[in-house]
């Protein structure tokens, strides 16, 4: 029965795909199907890749790891390169969805990407067999210096009643709970119900102060002075500061989530060699630099960082923080299905509270 359902699913999804795949501009050396986060690459680099290798790039985007996962695991669309975050890489490895990368075809990766990032990757990809770091960063507090008078160095500011209705929280399970867990000194990967319940109650107590739970909109609302304080990914901080110089980014003293997004090749990839060429291309210093300039998310590509001309950016504490100065930095682990459901239940309780 399950097989039949899967078949039906594939048929229906396949039919819907037919409408989308009509364009003809085929590369002479085949194609590579890339599935990446929204606004997470300089589109010019894709054209350069096409010109250089004669491989057509079919590009598709997603907003969260959780939206990407079912599409890949159902196998409805055969992607060649995807860019999941750490815990999702771990999940996909555990479910045998990824293909080992032949690093002989990706010489730029080991050459240009800093040793510390490979070491960090070991946590979710032991032996560095499946993934190549693309971007990394922290989660922190973005605040408007004109609207906030208190010192901002702790997650506590998000519970400060002076800023009622001026606070933006992240609208995704793990990021929302991470804030509360770190504030209380717990691990962001905890499965202890007592700790999670405490955080749940604190998040419910915080809810009247929260203006909205959003993901990408934090950026625009902070630029537009619509809110005073927001939880945001470090990669957005440089961009928002360019647009609104009153904004300041802080990594709270209690610690936070440190994350890496990585290129991986799914097991059902039809063009794994092209995928490796693509990843290798993305690890080239000049290309990595173009992408860094465009998306402003920290690059693990040390060679690319050396090429940055603006000294302020090159040594920016936001883009390239000295991690040894901070405590409690933690990468998300995949918590298993039961863990995910545990969090989801508490999350719903927070969201449905008045």
């Amino acid at each position, binding site marked *: 029965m399950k097989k039949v359902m899967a078949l039906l699913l594939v048929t*229906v999804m396949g039919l819907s795909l037919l409408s989308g795949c009509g364009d003809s501009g085929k590369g002479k050396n085949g194609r590579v199907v890339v599935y990446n986060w929204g606004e997470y690459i300089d589109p010019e680099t894709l054209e350069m890749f096409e010109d250089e290798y004669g491989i057509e790039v079919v590009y598709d985007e997603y907003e969260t790891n959780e*939206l990407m996962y079912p599409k890949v695991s159902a196998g409805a669309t055969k992607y060649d390169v995807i860019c999941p975050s750490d815990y999702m890489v771990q999940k996909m490895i555990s479910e045998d969805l990824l293909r080992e990368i032949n690093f002989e075809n990706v010489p730029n990766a080991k050459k240009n990407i800093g040793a510390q990032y490979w070491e960090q990757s070991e946590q979710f990809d032991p032996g560095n067999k499946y993934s190549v770091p693309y971007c990394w960063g922290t989660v922190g507090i973005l605040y408007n210096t004109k609207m906030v008078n208190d010192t901002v160095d702790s997650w506590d500011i998000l519970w400060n009643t002076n800023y009622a209705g001026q606070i933006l929280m992240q609208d995704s399970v793990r990021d929302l709970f991470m804030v509360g867990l770190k504030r209380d000194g717990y691990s962001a990967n905890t499965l202890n119900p007592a700790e999670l319940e405490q955080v749940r109650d604190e998040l419910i107590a915080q809810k009247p102060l929260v203006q*909205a739970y*959003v993901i990408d909109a934090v950026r625009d609302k902070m630029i537009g002075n619509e809110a005073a304080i927001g939880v945001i990914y470090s990669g957005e901080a440089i961009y928002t500061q360019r647009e609104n110089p009153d904004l300041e980014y802080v990594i709270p003293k209690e610690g936070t989530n440190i994350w890496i997004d990585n290129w991986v090749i799914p097991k059902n990839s039809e063009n794994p060699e092209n995928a490796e060429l693509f990843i290798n291309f993305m690890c080239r210093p000049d290309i990595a630099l173009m992408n860094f300039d465009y998306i402003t998310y920290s690059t693990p590509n040390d060679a690319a960082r050396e090429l940055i001309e603006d000294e302020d950016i090159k040594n920016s504490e936001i883009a390239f923080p000295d991690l040894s100065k901070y405590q409690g930095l933690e990468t998300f682990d995949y918590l298993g299905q039961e863990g995910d459901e545990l969090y989801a239940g508490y999350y719903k309780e927070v*969201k*449905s509270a008045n």
Partner: protein
Amino acid sequence: MLKNSKRLMLGLPYYFWSIAFVIIPLFMVVYYGVTNRSGSLTIENITAIAVPEHFKALLLAVRLSVISTIICFLLAYPLAMILAKYGKGKSSVLVMLFILPMWMNFLLRTMAWQTLLENNGVINSALSFIGLPKLNIINTPGAIIFGMVYNFLPFMVLPLYNSLSKIDPNVINAARDLGANSVQTFIKVTLPLSVPGIMSGITMVFVPALTTFVISDLLGGAKVLLIGNVIEQEFSQTNNWHLGSGLSLILMFFIIISMIISAIFDKDGEGSVI
């Protein structure tokens, strides 16, 4: 025989469409709804509606969509009467004006309202410029009702307009000749004759309002959890399609009931939009 096969041929695209995009997906929702991850039958996904958060989200969704439907009806009925009263030529321009915004994407229009209603948005800037107090409506249930009314009002106006414009003016004249005043005419003649339109208007507003998750996300700041949001989260965040489908079946139950009611009152399809 030939006639029959021709009819079948002509119907083929439609059959294909409804099997591929209605029947199969529906069957899949039912399948996921009554099974768990290991594939065995269960009713847990459906009884999950009794979980306090789910039930609360359902009640809230019902409450907000009932309020929106009532507001839509109160706004749309007089409007539809005005439209129906004007001659054909003029009213078609007016009806056109009403349909025009629907040519724009629903999401874009809702996002536009987000920008308009924001604390430092266009409306509040204008209000504070003329010295009036600010409107703190964004990210509240009130904003969600507003969004529902705004988005679904045309779905109420059009069926009402359709059924009102089909009322033979002679019937109204006869009522007036026989001594009924305008209020009596309205209550005894116009209103009963427009019931098919009312019923289909109510269904067409209530059903999308009940199931929406976009409006509550955009205008409610994701602070208000409706049943549509719960289901959306099960699919997109928690990745529990079984629970999402089970809860969808509950929602489908409400939809089927309102469609049956509308079918009873609207036997001839009079109130249909086109």
